[in-house]
């Protein structure tokens, strides 16, 4: 079985690499393995800076993400990605088990990994500094932005929090990259929401630029550091644990059949037990979020007509993508030929089972979103109601897109980026069209929403069906080479991404109206 996450080969000669590994152990190994990641992120930074001026007149919202703002956000994202790869691959490929057999203290291994993280982050910062230096006025703008000590604090604290979150979560969650990435973001958002609420209750100010918890403030930095400490404790506890890999090596079916209830799922209900097992977390999160978030929104926005509903808007696709990505179990994605294919059952049977599982999960998801909508019908302002509906559509489209990626590719960072590239423009366009259709905004023509809706339906229904059919019935894509699957994804996903982006750029006001009312 080939390694699930492929990175470009290191430029070092084999003999030199061996000497480096012998001298530095895990730290050197991780730096060599992941050196392409910070360089790639710096490349994304450079491309973003290059296209930002052309977006300025098309989308004021997107044009904000350049210069110091971009530097600030990319640093946190890169720290998150670096933290993530340092531990995720060890879990996914079970090499964490290999490390634990070596005569090294767990905290020593942790220190090696932290050292590698610092080096990789240093590589990123050096590369980005070079990019900033060649952009006219870039260096001056950045130093001016950083001249505020609060911003420096926030920058450091957010980078720390990003790294700690990415580092700790793979050690405690199932080794599914989509789940980990999105659960990390969802957990961070939930933590911030709780902190905002607690801070708001204590100080009387809620979630505004004037609040002492706004990004760039001391309160924000304190929250990020507190979060980092929590994540560090999680990592230390997980590293000290001896047997995480043992439990994971047990076949999922065996685990699923261990109780009478699961036998019922398997034999009588006809769901694949691994799917049911994996769907539990996203469903719980979805329902919890759907119940708690509307309440939080009311606390924050007593006198406001829902202009800050974008938190809900953010949570919806995250949870939806969790759901979609969990519909295919980790083991099935990783193994070139998986166990189910060896059973004397047609692939169409598995196809129907999976579609049934996804359909049932979707019903639960939609119901979870409908409940607050129904509750809100009496009191909620129309704009907020529109955001709920839009959120549900975004949620579903993101979920199925992530599912598509999960089926076609062994999940890797590329798949996450591709999923977001596709789903966010589509979701926004679809949500905007729904809002316009429901509330008859004058800026929209009536033909436009129909086109958007058709696309949304295609994404929400057509793609998962196509992906399932390809994976389970027609072409055993899971048995094909990594390269061939990547080729399919590379052809399909960018086409959709380009179309979705075009929709967004042509009508940027949709997005702005939906967010800011």
């Amino acid at each position, binding site marked *: *079985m080939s*390694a699930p996450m492929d990175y470009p080969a290191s430029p070092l000669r084999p003999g030199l690499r061996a000497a480096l*590994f012998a001298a530095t152990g895990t730290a050197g190994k991780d730096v060599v393995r992941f050196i392409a990641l910070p360089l790639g992120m710096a490349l994304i930074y450079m491309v973003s800076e290059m296209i930002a001026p052309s977006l300025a007149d098309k989308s004021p919202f997107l044009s904000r993400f350049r210069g110091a703002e971009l530097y600030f956000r990319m640093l946190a994202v890169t720290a998150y990605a670096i933290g993530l790869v340092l531990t995720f691959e060890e879990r996914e490929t079970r090499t964490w088990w290999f490390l634990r057999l070596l005569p090294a203290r767990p905290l020593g291994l942790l220190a090696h990994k932290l050292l590698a993280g610092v080096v990789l982050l240093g590589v990123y910062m050096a590369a980005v500094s070079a990019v900033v230096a060649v952009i006219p006025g870039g260096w001056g703008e950045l130093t001016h932005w950083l001249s505020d000590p609060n911003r420096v604090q926030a920058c450091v604290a957010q980078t720390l929090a990003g790294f700690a979150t990415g580092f700790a979560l793979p050690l405690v969650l199932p080794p599914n990259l989509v789940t980990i990435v999105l659960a990390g973001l969802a957990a961070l958002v939930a933590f911030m929401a709780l902190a905002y609420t607690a801070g708001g209750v204590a100080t009387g100010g809620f979630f505004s630029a004037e609040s002492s918890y706004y990004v760039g403030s001391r309160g924000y930095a304190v929250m990020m550091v507190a979060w980092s400490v929590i994540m560090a404790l999680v990592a230390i506890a997980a590293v000290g644990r001896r047997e995480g890999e043992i439990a994971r090596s047990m076949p999922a079916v065996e685990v699923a059949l261990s109780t009478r209830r699961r036998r019922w799922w398997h034999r009588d209900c006809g769901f694949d037990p691994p799917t049911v097992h994996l769907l539990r977390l996203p469903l719980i999160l979805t329902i919890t979020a759907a119940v708690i978030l509307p309440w939080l929104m009311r606390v924050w926005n007593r006198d406001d007509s829902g202009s800050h509903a974008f938190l809900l808007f953010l949570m919806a696709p995250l949870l939806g993508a969790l759901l979609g990505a969990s519909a295919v179990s980790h083991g099935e994605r990783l193994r070139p030929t998986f166990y189910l294919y060896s059973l004397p059952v047609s692939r169409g049977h598995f196809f129907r089972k999976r579609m049934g599982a996804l359909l049932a999960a979707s019903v639960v998801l939609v119901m979870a979103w409908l409940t607050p909508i129904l509750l809100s019908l009496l009191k909620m302002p129309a704009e907020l109601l529109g955001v709920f509906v839009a959120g549900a559509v975004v949620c579903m489209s993101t979920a199925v897109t992530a599912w598509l990626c999960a089926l076609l590719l062994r999940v890797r960072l590329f798949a996450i980026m591709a999923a977001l590239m596709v789903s966010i423009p589509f979701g926004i366009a679809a949500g905007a069209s729904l809002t316009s259709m429901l509330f008859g905004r004058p800026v929209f023509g009536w033909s436009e929403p129909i086109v958007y809706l058709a696309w949304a339906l295609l994404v929400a229904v057509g793609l998962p069906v196509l992906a399932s059919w390809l994976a389970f019935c027609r072409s055993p894509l899971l048995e094909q080479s990594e390269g061939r699957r990547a080729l399919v994804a590379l052809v399909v996903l960018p086409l959709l991404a380009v179309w979705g982006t075009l929709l967004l750029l042509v009508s940027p006001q949709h997005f702005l109206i939906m967010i800011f009312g």
Partner: protein
Amino acid sequence: MKPSADITTPAIETRGLGRRFGSKWAVCDLNLSIPRGCVYGLLGLNGAGKSTTIRMLMGVLEPTCGSARVLGYDPVTEDVAMKCRVGYVPDAPAFYEWMTAEEVCAFVAHYRRPEWDAKRAERLLRDFGVPANQRLRTLSKGQRAKVSLVLALAFSPDLLVLDEPTGGLDPLARRQFVEGVLAEYSESGRTILISSHLINEISGLVDHVGILHDGRLVRSEPTETLLARVKRVRLFYEGAPAPTACACSGLLRYTADGREAVAVVDDYDSARTAAEMARIGASHHVVEDLSLEEAFLEIVGPGAAAAAKEDES
């Protein structure tokens, strides 16, 4: 004094060691003592608890109850010191598959200095026919198993623990491993704990045997003692057919066919067995030796299990 320097203590010793997964005890009340310098074969059917036992001994799985000492070290609290002296080949080794064999050796060498012998590692790779500059992901299952063996052998550990080491090896490599590497290693006076299904292949090397059945240690003794105790006795009857049942002490299995019957007895003693056979009316009997595999199968086979249940009831 370092724990491992005390040569009078057993290489491995456990007291009441047990591990539970959910409600099921995978290993229960394990009292094991493996003398230094011996080759100890840990035998058992699938799911008997061999790998769980080894993982607890290697400090990668925490016991639910009981204690263990490996070379005098506690695997839970002194696992790093213990791992410096122990070479372990797991049943399903996981590597950095993007590394070459040479690189993974270098990586492990970082943690096993100063004991790591790079020349020995190089020689073992060459002897096993493993390409040193090829990425591990491109190697066959057997070649990766050989890399795992090289990593365990290259620093000359005091104790070598092998969990199904020959699983992925072809017959030639198996013979090379058993007759070459293991024999050489055991001759140097070091201790080997080996768990394997291929009992016949290791039977010539193993001087102590432990048999695990349903998580319990049902035998632990020198191989010679075991083979001297478990015998197959062919009974011949004249005049009347052989009885369909037999009530002899230490009986593991009894089958009758016409005027001939076969009894497999535990705790064999020539005088006592002769008296027993005369008592049940056999005109004469022939005692046959069993191979280690035959003895193992007789002890853990269905007949033994049924007898054990009867005893309990």
